[in-house]
């Protein structure tokens, strides 16, 4: 691995260690970030065991004071004058004495040593001229700029990796973090990412920052409303959405969000009205079709529900969760054959008769409309056509027909690829049979009369 890669790992490790100190965060989140930082810094040290910075930052995320002491000792072995390591060891010596008391041993599991940066809290970040946005001096342990409020270290909304703000893309997963040079866009990007990941609290904070910076930001109140809605705060969501609607009454997304809110409140009729408005403004709004279909289904309007589900399937991206949901619903709602029909003789005979009639007509014409002229090959071809038609019908629409149940068991043909293969084989047999009938083997080329 190159030095550059090692530096990159170190950067990520430091960012994760800083993120572990960020508030507010749940104990699980802190522990996760600490684990991440430990792992990254350990990888750096595996590549370069003389990396002082890595040892110092590792001391902030290790689990036990003994490990912390080991980190400081390693630093001092490399640089006996390092004041961070010295101060850390001194502090540890103070903690060690009462640590013998059983009452406070549980504290040993907490990180007690401060980050190296805290010792020189007023010092600017070593790897930059200050805040990347306002350029004011900041401490190396600051997680947001005390002057302009820009967040300096943040967790990637997509993968949870701690990322320095200068990185406009997450190093781990490539998620675009926004651009800190244009703060409202930056926060808007963050807000959208948080919203997508369902982290509504952070999304609200991000969109509130956008509001502070530029109250005229496009669709600001729509997104703020969506974030509030995610937080289950309908009153705030409604206020934001009303403002959004006042700014842009023809935005289908605003009506859709309002409809979603009404749906959550179980106000079905109001929700339906809003969905209808969405579809009037944007007839290709797949999610609105899906919701409308759901409402139709609830009220028993099966035909309309079917139509709406079909529209949803047509318009939603095929790999989206909503599309999968719409397809599943469509299968549920779509009329299925009654049991008596699906497993009875009459329907099997009806479906097989169509293809057989064609072959029968062809054989009849081939014999000059004289059935007694039909040759053995003609009858054999008819038999093959019957078999092919039966296989096709069994594989395509009647997998549990009486013959199939007799042959393969009570359940008939199992669902899946097998059915399609049986249908395809059946179709091929039928086509071969028709080909055999139509192929003019014994027939002569006619004398062509003069043009009348």
């Amino acid at each position: 691995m190159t030095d550059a890669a090692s530096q990159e790992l170190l950067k990520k490790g430091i960012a994760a260690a800083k993120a572990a100190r960020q508030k507010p965060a749940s104990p699980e989140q802190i522990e996760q970030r600490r684990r991440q930082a430990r792992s990254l810094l350990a990888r750096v040290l595996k590549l370069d065991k003389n990396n002082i910075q890595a040892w110092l930052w590792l001391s902030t995320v290790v689990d036990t004071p003994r490990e912390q002491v080991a980190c400081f000792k390693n630093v001092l072995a490399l640089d006996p004058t390092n004041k961070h390591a010295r101060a850390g060891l001194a502090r540890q010596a103070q903690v060690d004495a009462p640590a013998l008391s059983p009452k406070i041993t549980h504290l040993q599991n907490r990180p007690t040593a401060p980050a190296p940066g805290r010792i020189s809290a007023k010092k600017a970040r070593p790897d930059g001229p200050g805040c990347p946005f306002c350029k004011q001096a900041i401490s190396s342990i600051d997680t947001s700029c005390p002057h302009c409020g820009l967040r300096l270290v943040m967790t990637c909304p997509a993968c949870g990796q701690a990322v320095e703000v200068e990185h406009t893309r997450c190093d781990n997963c490539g998620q675009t973090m926004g651009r800190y040079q244009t703060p409202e866009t930056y926060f808007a990007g963050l807000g959208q990412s948080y919203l997508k990941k369902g982290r509504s609290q952070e999304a609200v904070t991000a969109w509130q920052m956008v509001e502070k910076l530029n109250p005229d930001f496009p669709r600001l109140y729509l997104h703020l409303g969506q974030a509030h809605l995610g937080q289950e705060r309908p009153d705030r969501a409604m206020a934001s959405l009303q403002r959004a609607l006042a700014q842009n009454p023809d935005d289908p997304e605003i009506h859709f969000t309002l409809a979603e809110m009404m749906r959550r409140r179980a106000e079905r009729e109001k929700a339906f009205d809003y969905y209808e408005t969405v579809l009037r403004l944007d007839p290709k709004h797949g999610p609105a079709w899906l919701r409308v279909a759901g409402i139709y289904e609830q009220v028993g309007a099966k035909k309309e529900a079917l139509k709406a589900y079909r529209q949803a399937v047509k318009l939603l991206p095929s790999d989206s969760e909503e599309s999968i949901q719409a397809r599943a619903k469509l299968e549920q709602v779509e009329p299925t054959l009654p049991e008596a029909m699906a497993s009875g003789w009459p329907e099997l005979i009806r479906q097989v008769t169509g293809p057989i009639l064609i072959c029968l007509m062809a054989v009849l014409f081939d014999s000059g409309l004289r059935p007694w002229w039909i040759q053995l090959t003609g009858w054999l071809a008819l038999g093959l056509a019957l078999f092919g038609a039966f296989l096709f019908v069994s594989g395509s629409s009647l997998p549990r027909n009486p013959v199939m149940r007799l042959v393969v068991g009570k359940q008939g043909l199992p669902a899946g690829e097998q059915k399609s293969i049986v249908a395809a084989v059946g179709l091929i047999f039928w086509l071969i049979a028709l080909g055999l009938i139509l192929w003019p083997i014994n027939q002569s080329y006619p004398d062509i009369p003069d043009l009348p």
Partner: protein
Amino acid sequence: MTLPVFLILLSQLVYLLPLRDRRSRRLGFPWMTLSLVVINILIHILVLIVGSGSDEETWVLLYPYMEVPRLILDGEGLGALSILTSGFLHGGWWHLAGNMFILWFFGRKVEDATGSLRFALLYTFCLYTSALLSVISRGAFTSTAEGMIPGLGASGAIFGIMAAYLFLYSDQRILTLILPIPWPFWIPAWIYIVRELLLNALVGQLIQEGSLVVRVNVFAHLGGAAGGLLFIYFFLHPDVFAQRR
């Protein structure tokens, strides 16, 4: 002038051009109808290219592929295959355009009730039923010379599709331009289709009586329509069949 002739002449004063109906689609796009239209057009273009525009050459080229009642009855020529091939041949651009317009209009709706594959089967079946009546009427009951006159065109199958439409959607209304009146009217579908069938039946009657000679194969139309009307039951999509029971 007899009453049938008078009625036929009267009906020729107006031309009904269907524009649209109110029925929405149940399934997706009618691919089979479109494919049939495209295949018919491509074959017509191919015939024009290969025949080099000469009637004589085209006649020699196409004769074996046309439906010749006498040859079929005598077991000569392409036999049953010629019925299929003749269904894709047309006598000119107007013949083709008229047939394809009606196929596109009614075929889409019928395909919606049968599904694509069953629609293709129904279309083929109607070609055969149209040929059945045509061959019997022109081959068995006329002179040998008349029996050697070939027939071509998709209209037999298209009449079958129209009749199937009538069976399926008899309560539908069709927005129709009744030429020469310049604005359209919503008329019941059965009026449109029954008019066409009656007209063909009248002309057929007059041909049998020997009082009318036309180049239109009305027996093929009637045979196709009978096939579509009487046998659509066997080609319906199972879901549609279950709903209609």
